[in-house]
């Protein structure tokens, strides 16, 4: 009996570990290949260790794409976009959960309907509007279309529903203004939820491909995913896979670290059904 149990346990862990290897291996490969050249990466005898080409690969990316500028562009767009979006969607979700007012339900229904409309339906009018306003090739043009995230509002509303109304009422008796209640009581209580939605928004901006692709054509304004696209689709220069891998690593590693750090505060079950 115990033998059978032990065998079962071994099988269970074996399956789980094989799964883990399948999911982690591409990341490890990405980092190793960033230090190698095409001869090794595409050669007959692949080598799974560190090579000597990391600096050379980085220099090439820097020379071809002014990569430090690209990273800066991505950071600026992501930080500003995430900050504004998180503030306005937290406020909106909180209000929709905690205040009954004329028009409140209408706003909520509109948000729910908008959630069903795929992003693709918006790219043409968005591009049309932005080019008329001369906002193509600007940070604003990339940040603006994703600020009013209906997913974030929906998630914040769900979380804020659990926020005790009694807390608001006793604060009112003490003479606190509505905004003060939000700032001083609701925000600290809802902090894990705000971090979760904030991380999703951060990921959205950092990984964004479609909107930057149509809005940015000036290489000086490129974000990280656009450099990846350019490298893989460049018809003038054969692809240096090692250099590509070093760019992929800069795209992936920050998010992975952030995710692991925030993981404990992450309410994964809610996140799972909210990403859409």
């Amino acid at each position, binding site marked *: 009996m115990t033998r059978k149990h032990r065998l079962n346990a071994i099988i269970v862990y074996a399956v*789980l570990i094989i799964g883990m290897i399948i999911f982690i291996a591409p990341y490890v490969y990405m980092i190793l290949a960033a230090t190698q050249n095409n001869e090794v990466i595409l050669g007959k005898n692949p080598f799974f260790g560190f090579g000597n080409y990391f600096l050379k690969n980085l220099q090439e990316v820097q020379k071809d794409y002014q990569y430090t500028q690209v990273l800066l562009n991505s950071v600026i767009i992501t930080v500003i976009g995430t900050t504004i979006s998180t503030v306005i969607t937290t406020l909106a979700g909180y209000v929709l959960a905690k205040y009954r007012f004329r028009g409140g339900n209408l706003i909520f229904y509109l948000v729910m309907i908008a959630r069903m409309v795929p992003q693709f339906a918006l790219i043409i009018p968005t591009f049309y509007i932005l080019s008329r306003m001369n906002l193509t090739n600007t940070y604003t043009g990339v940040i603006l279309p994703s600020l009013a995230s209906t997913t974030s509002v929906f998630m914040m509303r769900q979380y804020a529903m659990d926020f005790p109304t009694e807390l608001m009422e006793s604060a009112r008796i003490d003479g606190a203004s509505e905004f003060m209640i939000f700032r001083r009581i609701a925000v600290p209580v809802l902090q894990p939820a705000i971090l979760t939605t904030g991380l999703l928004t951060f990921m959205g901006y950092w990984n964004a491909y479609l909107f930057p692709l149509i809005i940015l054509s000036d290489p000086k304004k490129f974000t990280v995913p656009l450099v990846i696209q350019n490298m893989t689709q460049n018809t003038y220069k054969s692809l240096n896979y090692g250099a590509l891998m070093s760019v992929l690593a800069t795209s*992936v590693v920050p998010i992975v670290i952030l995710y692991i750090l925030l993981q404990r505060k992450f309410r994964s079950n809610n996140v799972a059904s909210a990403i859409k």
Partner: protein
Amino acid sequence: MEKQKHGLSKYTGAAWLMILPFLLFFVVTILIPTLMSLYFSFASIGDKIDFIGLKNFIAVFKDPLFLQSYANTFIFMIGSIPITIFLSLLFAVLLNLPHVHGQGFFRTSYYLPAVTSVVAVASVFLTFYNPTGLLNNVVTHLGGQPIPWLTDPFWARISIIIISIWLNIGFYTVMFLAGLQNISSEIYESAEIDGASKMRQFFSITIPSLKPVILLGVILSTINGLGAFETPNILFKNSYGPENSAVTVGVNLYKTSFELVDYGKASAIAWTMVIVAVILSLIQFKIGGKRNDA
């Protein structure tokens, strides 16, 4: 009641003030573009915008590439969803076993693809799929012929399906795990008392309880599948793939708008996507019920 109503209306001003910034952006960047897009789908767009009725939709449905893009999406779903669901269910059930250690650790590693840029993932696989890349290296070492991953229509689709499965398993595992943890242990206990075997319990309790979650997963995958763009765009370098095998509705829409610059037709394609997405979401609401929204 009366008093409460009066009391709450005092705060209406503050409520409006706090929701106003979001509302402003929502109207300008989502609501108005949605309505514009709807109008564009019935219009011809050049220097000026002319209403042309259903002409765009008629042109779209006569276009073989449009039909191919829906067929491809369907093929990708058939190829990826069953395997994804089977493997995620397996991982979720194993992780949910009472004496498995390191649940959080495994879950985090499985979930990594869900937080990673799809463009980056597709590029790593692009490297794997290279004619002399890692995968063919393994295949030839095992004595097989190199596989034409990206140049043969059949393998081109397999390449996309593999990426889709790899990307989605973690997300589904976490979703199923949450679903499993919602099933009350009392049900299992009383089944145990009635003498139901573990196998029987799995098929009579676990699977039926997870049905709404599975449905949600299938519908989300379908909606995402219609808009799939990053993977085919990176793997096939902004082409339709060998013999149009990798054209999705999203790829077709992108190329119609930004290469053929036919905004009217592209908007019509977009609205076929909206209609399918809305129908699927409504089905999900109806069958899945509200419990899954949380």
